[in-house]
C-alpha cells in the first residue's frame, strides 16, 4: 500500500512535468529562435540551443524593426499596447465602480432598466457587431487614436456586476457612521467604499490588463497608421510577406516581447490573478 502510494506520486510528478513540457515547448522554441541567425532558421536547420544573436536581434527588434514588412520599431508597438491596455483596464474599473455605486446606493427612476442595459452587453462582444461598430468609431473620427482603441471596449458588465455584488456585502452601519460624520455620497464613496474595494480592484485590474493587452480584432480594424499599431497587430504584419522574406528571429523576439508583460503579471501576481479570474466568471 505504502509502496503503491510512492509509485502514484512518482507518476503524478511525471505527468505534470510532461504537461509543463507541452505548455512550455513552443515558447522555448521562440526564445531560442530569437537568438539565432535568420539564414539558419530559414533553411530548417535551427538548433535547439541558444545562438549568439541575442543582443543584436533584440536591439534591432525594439529600436529599428524589420527591414521589410513593418516600418515601425517594436518599441513603439509596445508603448501603444501598454497605453491601450492601461486605458482599457483603468477605464473599465472606473466607469463600472461608479455605475455599481449608483445602482446599489441610490433609488432613482429606471434603475433596474439601466442595470439590465449594462448587463445585456455581455451578449454583444465586438465580434458580433464588427463593422457597424467600426462605422460609428469612424464617424466619430476616432480611427487611429488611443480613444478609438479603448473607448468602444471599456463598458464592462462583469466588472459592474462584481462591484455591485461586493457593495451589497458592505454593512449598512458604515454608511450610517459616515453620515453621522456629515459625509455626503461622494465623500462616503471616496473615503469608505474605495479603500474597501482595493483588493477587488486589483484582482480585476490584473485580468483586465491582460485582456486589454491581448486585444486583436478591434485594433486590427481601426488602426491603419503604422505608428498606431499594437504589438499583436505588428507581429501579424511581420509574417504577411512571402515566407522566404520573413525575418523569423525578429518575429520570435517580437512574440517574446508581446508575451512578457502579461505573463509577468500572471506569475508575479498569481494570487490576485486567480482571484480575479474566478471572480469575473461567477
Amino acid at each position, binding site marked *: 500500500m505504502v509502496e503503491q502510494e510512492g509509485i*502514484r*506520486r512518482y507518476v503524478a510528478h511525471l*505527468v*505534470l512535468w510532461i504537461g*509543463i513540457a*507541452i*505548455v512550455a*515547448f*513552443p*515558447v522555448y*522554441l521562440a526564445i531560442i529562435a530569437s537568438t539565432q541567425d535568420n539564414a539558419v532558421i*530559414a533553411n*530548417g536547420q535551427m538548433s535547439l540551443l541558444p545562438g549568439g544573436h541575442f543582443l543584436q536581434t533584440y536591439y534591432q527588434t525594439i529600436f529599428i524593426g524589420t527591414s521589410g514588412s513593418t516600418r515601425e520599431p517594436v518599441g513603439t508597438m509596445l508603448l501603444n499596447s501598454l497605453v491601450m491596455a492601461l486605458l482599457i483596464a483603468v477605464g473599465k474599473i*472606473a*466607469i463600472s465602480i*461608479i*455605475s455599481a455605486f*449608483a445602482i446599489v*446606493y*441610490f433609488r*432613482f427612476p429606471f434603475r433596474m432598466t*439601466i442595470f439590465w*442595459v*449594462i448587463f445585456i*452587453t*455581455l*451578449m*454583444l462582444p465586438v*465580434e*458580433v*457587431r*464588427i*463593422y*457597424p*461598430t467600426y*462605422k*460609428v468609431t469612424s464617424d466619430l473620427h476616432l480611427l487611429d487614436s488611443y480613444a478609438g482603441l479603448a473607448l468602444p471596449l471599456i*463598458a464592462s458588465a462583469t466588472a459592474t456586476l462584481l462591484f455591485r455584488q461586493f457593495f*451589497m456585502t458592505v454593512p449598512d452601519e458604515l*454608511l450610517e457612521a459616515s453620515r453621522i460624520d456629515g459625509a*455626503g*455620497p461622494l465623500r462616503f464613496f471616496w473615503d469608505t467604499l474605495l479603500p474597501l474595494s482595493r483588493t477587488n480592484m486589483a484582482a480585476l485590474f490584473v485580468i483586465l490588463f491582460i485582456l486589454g*493587452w*491581448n486585444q*486583436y*480584432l478591434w485594433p486590427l480594424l481601426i488602426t491603419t497608421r503604422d505608428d498606431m499599431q499594437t504589438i499583436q497587430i505588428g*507581429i*501579424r504584419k511581420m*509574417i504577411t510577406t512571402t*515566407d522566404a522574406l520573413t525575418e*523569423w528571429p525578429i*518575429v520570435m523576439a517580437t*512574440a517574446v516581447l508581446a*508575451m512578457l508583460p502579461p505573463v509577468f*503579471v500572471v506569475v508575479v501576481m*498569481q494570487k490576485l490573478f*486567480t482571484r480575479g*479570474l*474566478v471572480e469575473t466568471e*461567477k
Partner: protein
Amino acid sequence: MQKNAIFQSKLLPFALVAPQLAIVLIFFYWPAAQAVVQSFLLQDAFGLSTSFVWFENYLDLLQDAEYFATIGRTFFFSFAIALSSLSLALLLAVMADKPLRGGTLYRTLLIWPYAVAPPVVGVLWIFMLHPSLGVLARYLRAMGVDWNPLLDGNQAALLIILAAAWKQISYNFLFFLAGLQSIPKSVIEAAAIDGARPMRRFWTVIFPLLSPTIFFLIVVNIVYAFFDTFGIIDTMTRGGPGTSTVTLVYKVYTEGLIGGNLGSSAAQSVILMVIVIVLTAIQFRFVERKVTY
C-alpha cells in the same frame, strides 16, 4: 438587490451611470441595432438604393452550402478544442491536486499560457510546425508523414485545433483544480474506507461532483473557440488553404473587408448574436457556479 441605507439625490445617480451608459449605447446598442436593421435590407450593386427585403438575406444564407459548411466547421472546431483541452487539463489538475512537493511551482508553470495572446499563439505554432522550417515538422517528415498544413486543409484544421487547445489548457486547469479542491476530503475518504480503488473513486465520486465545473467549462470553451480563435486563425492560416479553416467570425471579418454584400454580412452578425445569447443563457440558466478558491 437594494440596500436599506441609501442616499437621497435626484441627479447624482444619473451622473454616475452616465459614462457607462453613453459607451454602451453608442458602441454596443447602436451598432447592434444597425446590424439588425441592415440584415433586413438589400442594396443594389452600385449602393444607390436600398430596399426592405424581410428575411431574404437570411434565406440566402441558409441556402448557401458554403455558409452551412462554415457552421459545421465552427462547431467541429469548438468540440475538438473543448474536448482535447479539457481532458488534458483535467488529467493535470487531478495530478496537481495530490499533496506533492513543489505543488505551487507546478501550478505556476502550468497557468501562465493564459496570458499569451491568440495571435502570438498562432505565430508560435506555425513556427513550430511550418512545413519548410518548423522544428517539429522536420521530425514528422522524418517519420514519413507528408506534412504540409499550408496545402492540406485537414492538417491546417488540426493545427488550429492543437494551437487553440494548447492556449486553453491553463484556464481549464485552474478551474478544474479549484473544483477539485472544493470537494470535501471526507467524501473521498469515506469512499476509500468503503474499499473503492483510486480509479473507481475518481469515476464514481470525484467526477460526478466535478460535473458543474465541467459543464461550465464546456460552455466557456465553446465561446472561446467561436470568438477567440480569430487571432490564431488570422496569424496561422488566414482561413486557408481554400476555406478549410474559416470559422463564422472569420467569415464575417473577411467578407466585410472585401466589402460588397452588407445585408448578408449583417445577417451573419445577427446569427452570431443569437448564438452568443443562447450560450450565455445556457451558462446562466443551467450552470451552477460553485467554484471556490
